[in-house]
């Protein structure tokens, strides 16, 4: 369990580590925006949702890596061919898997990921409510006004202080 986990850790991070280092050397294709601004805007919106596969969580929209550029061009091609946004993303996911999506899809494997923050918050709120409740009794005691005996004692003490 431990060794495979570490190996995964290492490979994943090694791939992520390629980060900015993947340069654009030797690339031939050029990032050419589409002529129709509406289509280009759609392509850009899709670019922002796709991961540059050799970078650290950068989208293909903001990476210099040649692979990112190739994917940008691929997305534009699909859009130019008349694919819908969904179809374009599906096309890419079919080739690269869910890993390419920056927003992990909600499914069995990711349910804890998406529910996690809500569970954390609920747990934290509950703990704090319990904690305040346990405090409540003494707080109530603080807020009850002094009874007659206590009033008399207070008076005595204050009186003493005046004389000093």
């Amino acid at each position, binding site marked *: *369990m*431990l060794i*495979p*986990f*570490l*190996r*995964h*850790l*290492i490979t*994943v*991070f*090694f791939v*992520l*580590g*390629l*980060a*900015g*280092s993947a*340069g*654009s*050397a030797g690339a031939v294709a*050029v*990032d*050419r*925006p589409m002529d129709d601004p509406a289509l280009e805007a759609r392509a850009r919106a899709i670019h922002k*949702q796709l*991961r540059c596969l050799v970078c*650290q*969580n*950068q*989208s293909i*929209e*903001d*990476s*210099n890596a040649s692979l990112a550029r190739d994917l940008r061009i691929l997305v534009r091609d699909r859009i130019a061919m008349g694919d819908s946004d969904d179809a374009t993303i599906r096309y890419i996911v079919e080739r690269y*898997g*869910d*890993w*390419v*999506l*920056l*927003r*992990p*899809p909600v499914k069995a*494997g*990711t349910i*804890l*990921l998406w529910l*996690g*923050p809500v569970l*954390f*918050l609920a747990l*934290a*709120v509950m703990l*704090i409510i319990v904690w*305040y409740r346990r*405090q409540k009794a*003494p*707080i109530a005691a*603080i807020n009850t006004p002094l009874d007659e005996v206590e009033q008399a004692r207070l008076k005595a003490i204050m009186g003493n202080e005046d004389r000093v």
Partner: protein
Amino acid sequence: MIAELGHYALVLALSVAIIQATVPLIGAWRGDPGWIGLAKPSAIIQCLLVTVAFAALMHAYITSDFSVLNVATNSHSAKPLLYKISGVWGNHEGSLLLWLLILVLFGAAVAVFGGNLPAPFRARVLSVQAMIGVGFLCFVLFTSNPFERLLPAPIDGSGLNPLLQDPGLAFHPPFLYLGYVGFSMAFSFAVAALIEGRVDAAWARWVRPWTLAAWCFLTTGIAMGSWWAYYELGWGGWWFWDPVENASFMPWLAGTALLHSSIVVEKRDSLKNWTVLLAILTFSLSLLGTFLVRSGVLTSVHAFATDPARGIFILAFLIAVIAGSLTLYAFRAPAIKGGGLFAPISREGGLVLNNLLLSTACATVLLGTLYPLFLDALTGEKITVGPPYFNATFGPLMVPVFLAMAFGPMLHWKRGDLQGAMQRLKFAVSASVVALFATLIFAYDGPWLAIPGIAIGVWMIAAALEEAAYRIRLFRVPVTESLRRLWRSPRSAWGTTFAHAGAGMVIIGIVASSAWQVEKLQIMKPGESVSVGGYDFTFEGAAPIPGPNYSAVRGVFQISRDGVDIAVLQPESRTYQDPPMDTTEAAIRTSWGGDLYAVIGDPTGDGSWSTRFYNKPMIHWIWMGALIMVFGGLVSLSDRRHRVGAPVRGKAAKVAAQSKSPSTPVVAK
């Protein structure tokens, strides 16, 4: 020879650290002053030895001694001196040595300046600090020795990643480490307090300045890193929620929570268990962060092979530190009795809310960062958790933090009055309502989230200022009296004002720059012009220029507005030889309104170039705000009670007793 001296110094440092980790601890337990007294000299000697080792490595880098493997793989003789120096920590082994150096510097600082700590307590703190040192020294010596020789020595080195050859990144790691390691002080104090079984106001006073200093460094380090990403990566992005960034952000979130909860311990003798736990967790997250980034699996892609021995050592050390301290916590925490009681609506209650939300946010970032690893390990399924996830989860968790931030300093200790606080914030309320409508009118066609976003930022700044005005009773007493109060009110309160206002600026910068950014991407021929959010960018041409260890193409763009020339931007596209790699150097013009950002891409081959322009309104507020937050931290650090030093325990007990009496503190009045 010098490299061997450095190696030898590290081995000596390990033996000293082992003594420091054990003898003073046993001495404190048996009450033996001789053994207790060993803590101070050994901390100082350990510091000197690690300094010698670090200097030896630095010497190897400056003189380009390529017979040292680490230098050969990470440096190059043609590199400018600054990057030869920063190259020392630009790799796995060297960065661990820097980590160690900072750790022992902090330890020596406690030894030298900790005269006001009771001797047994100081001995325990230094012992715990030395235990961390032993772990790191073993890690360096057994798995990541920076002094390993390479025979025969190569003619030249393979060079440093060109992206790292940048002034912003040269000093980014030391600041991050000063932050990470600074939290080790809070950890050592927490563990020492658990061993003693006593946490009181005096303890909080000792811990607070260290935590505050660490927080200032970490904030600076993170801000530097994001600024670097912004201008160096060439896409105008400054935060990508990648594991490395998250690794530094998690300790920041936990550290910010710790900073606030330790106020409650200091002033009200309450939340003690939680604060101790938070101190342990903050440092654990720092360790996790260091290892995620610097475990040899992330740093450098080309320089060295990954080594499973490192990974196992790392995991074992992490587990030992976290499990060890949490076990100690489980045994000793129940003995620590909480003090002052308070109602949910009170200054303490506000700080509890702060802690609740920051911890949840931190846990969310942790989940998002590690989830892909665990999912992959358990099921083999590969997913990416990217910015959309964090924006959808982390964002909403922070909104209540920002809203509530204004109320905290306006509430009284023990039992506050929310309506009263709201009334005292009437200026902030009206300012944010005005901001809301102004944004609605001027930017009704932009993303609608920007409208409340700007209003929240204005609310935070206005409330911070109004709280300060309230504190000095501006316009309610004669101006001279206000000035006197301005001078007399505690600096920690001013620290809050600056830090909270700075946070508001960061929010405004983030919201404005992401909502109203204009970006243009196109192929341009010299002479062509493009309009970007009211500015015209005219391409005047591109020409090759030489650099010290790279060659570059520099594009020249004339920027004009309404026909008036205002600036020339000259972005570069650089090609480094050692190692071979391309980088973009964006040209940025910063003005009050925001940044104009130009990037030159690749030539198309027919005399045209691909170019990218951005107009990012108010983006510099992000880093200005961060600087103001750090300034607030420094102001608070200069507070009299930190300068004068922590009081002796007896005195602290009195202070705690006083704060228990129903008098309201100066700040809240």
